[in-house]
C-alpha cells in the first residue's frame, strides 16, 4: 500500500539528527516493547510480513509522529486484536477480561538463545525457474497494490540491472495476508540515481526486489 511507511524520496522531515553516545534504550518502556513484541512474534501467531503490514496500516499522521517503539506497540495491539488474542477493552484496562486464546508456542527464557540464534530465514527451496539473471536489465512495475508490498514507490517504473540473484524467498505480498509463502526469486537490482531522480549523479541505489515486481526490458 502507498502508506506512511513508504518514505523514500519525501522531503520535509528536516535533517537527520545523530545522537552522540546514544544509549540502546531511551526509557524503560522501550525495553519492554522490544521484549514483548519479540516474544509475541515467537508465539507464531503471525509472520514478520504481517507485522510490517500492521505497522504501515497505522494512520499516516500517527505513524509519522511516533517513535519506532510507539509504532511497534500500536501495531502489536492491532495485530493481537485482529487475531482475537486480546480485545480493545483489555488494552485499555490492562486486565484480562476474556479467557486467553491458545497460541502455538510460548517463548520461555530457556528457548530465547536458540530462538534468536535460529532467527527466521526467508529463503525457501522452490522449483521455480528464475526469469532473470545477473546483468539483465529490468524495469520495476508501476503497481500500487492496496495490500502489503515491498516495492517502494520511488522505484516503480524505473529501469535497473540485476546484480545479485538470491534464490527464492518468501513473497511478502502474499505472506502478509495469510495467503502462504509463495516463494519467488529475489534479486538485488541496481538503479542509477539519475534514473530514479532525473539528476546527474555518479551514485546508485540498490533495492531488493522479488520477481513479480519486475518486467524485462
Amino acid at each position: 500500500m502507498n502508506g506512511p511507511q513508504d518514505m523514500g524520496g519525501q522531503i520535509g522531515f528536516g535533517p537527520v539528527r545523530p545522537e552522540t553516545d546514544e544509549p540502546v534504550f531511551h526509557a524503560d518502556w522501550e525495553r519492554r516493547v522490544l521484549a514483548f513484541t519479540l516474544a509475541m512474534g515467537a508465539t507464531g501467531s503471525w509472520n514478520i510480513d504481517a507485522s510490517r503490514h500492521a505497522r504501515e496500516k497505522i494512520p499516516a499522521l500517527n505513524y509519522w509522529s511516533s517513535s519506532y517503539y510507539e509504532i511497534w506497540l500500536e501495531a502489536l495491539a492491532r495485530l493481537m486484536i485482529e487475531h482475537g488474542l486480546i480485545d480493545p477493552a483489555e488494552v485499555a484496562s490492562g486486565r484480562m477480561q476474556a479467557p486467553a486464546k491458545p497460541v502455538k508456542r510460548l517463548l520461555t527464557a530457556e528457548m530465547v538463545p536458540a530462538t534468536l540464534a535460529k532467527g527466521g530465514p526467508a529463503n525457501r527451496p522452490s522449483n521455480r525457474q528464475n526469469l532473470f539473471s545477473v546483468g539483465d536489465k529490468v524495469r520495476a512495475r508501476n503497481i500500487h497494490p492496496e495490500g502489503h508490498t515491498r516495492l517502494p514507490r520511488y522505484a516503480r517504473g524505473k529501469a535497473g540491472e540485476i546484480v545479485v540473484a538470491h534464490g527464492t524467498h518468501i513473497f511478502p505480498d502474499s505472506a502478509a495476508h495469510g495467503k502462504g509463502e509463495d516463494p519467488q526469486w529475489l534479486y538485488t537490482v541496481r538503479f542509477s540515481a539519475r534514473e530514479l531522480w532525473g539528476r546527474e549523479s555518479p551514485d546508485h541505489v540498490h533495492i531488493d526486489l522479488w520477481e513479480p515486481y519486475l518486467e524485462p526490458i
Partner: protein
Amino acid sequence: MAHDGHDHDHGASELSPIALRVKAMESLLVEKGYVDPAALDLLIDTYETKIGPRNGARVVAKAWSDPAYAEWLKTDATAAIVSLGYEGRQGEHMVALFNTPQVHNMVVCTLCSCYPWPVLGLPPVWYKSMPYRSRAVIDPRGVLVEFGISLPENVELRVWDSTAEVRYLVIPLRPAGTEDWSEEQLASLVTRDSMIGTGLAKHPA
C-alpha cells in the same frame, strides 16, 4: 516528532502516558499467559548488553586482517559471520559491502527499519527516523554531510535499501597507519556508523 523517545525514566509514581500504556500491555500479556516474564528480561539483557556493534567491529577487523576471511565475507557473508558466533534474527541473510577508494556504501531501510541485529545490535533512533528513511535514497550526500562526511565527487555512493530479508554490513576502509595492529586494536577503530555507511572508521590517535 511528538514523542522523540527521549523521555527518561520516571519513578512508578509518575509514569508517562506511553509508559503506562506499555505497563498495561505487558501486564495483560503476562496475565493471559502469552509471554514469559523471564523471557522478556532475557531478551532485553541480550540486546542491551550482549549483541551490539562490537560484534560487527570484530567482523570488520578480521576482514581487514585476514584476506581469506575477507574473501569468504565477500562470497558468503552469512557463513563467514556465523563462524564468529554472530547469527540469527535479522541477520539470516547477510551481505558485506566493501568500501573502496572509489566506492562508498550506505545502508537504509526506507520502508521500516531493517537492520543487521546480530552484528550491530538494535538500530539507533536516527536510523529509524523519518528524516533518514526519506532522504537517504534521494539525497544521500546531503545526509552524509549531516554526519560530517563530504564525499568527494569522484567517489560513487552506493545506497542499499533493505527491502527484503537481506541485511547489509558495510566494511569501511582500513585507516592508514594501522599496518601492525592486532585485530583487537583494529576493532576499536570500527564505529557503528562506519558499518552503516554514515561514518568512517576512526583514524589511529
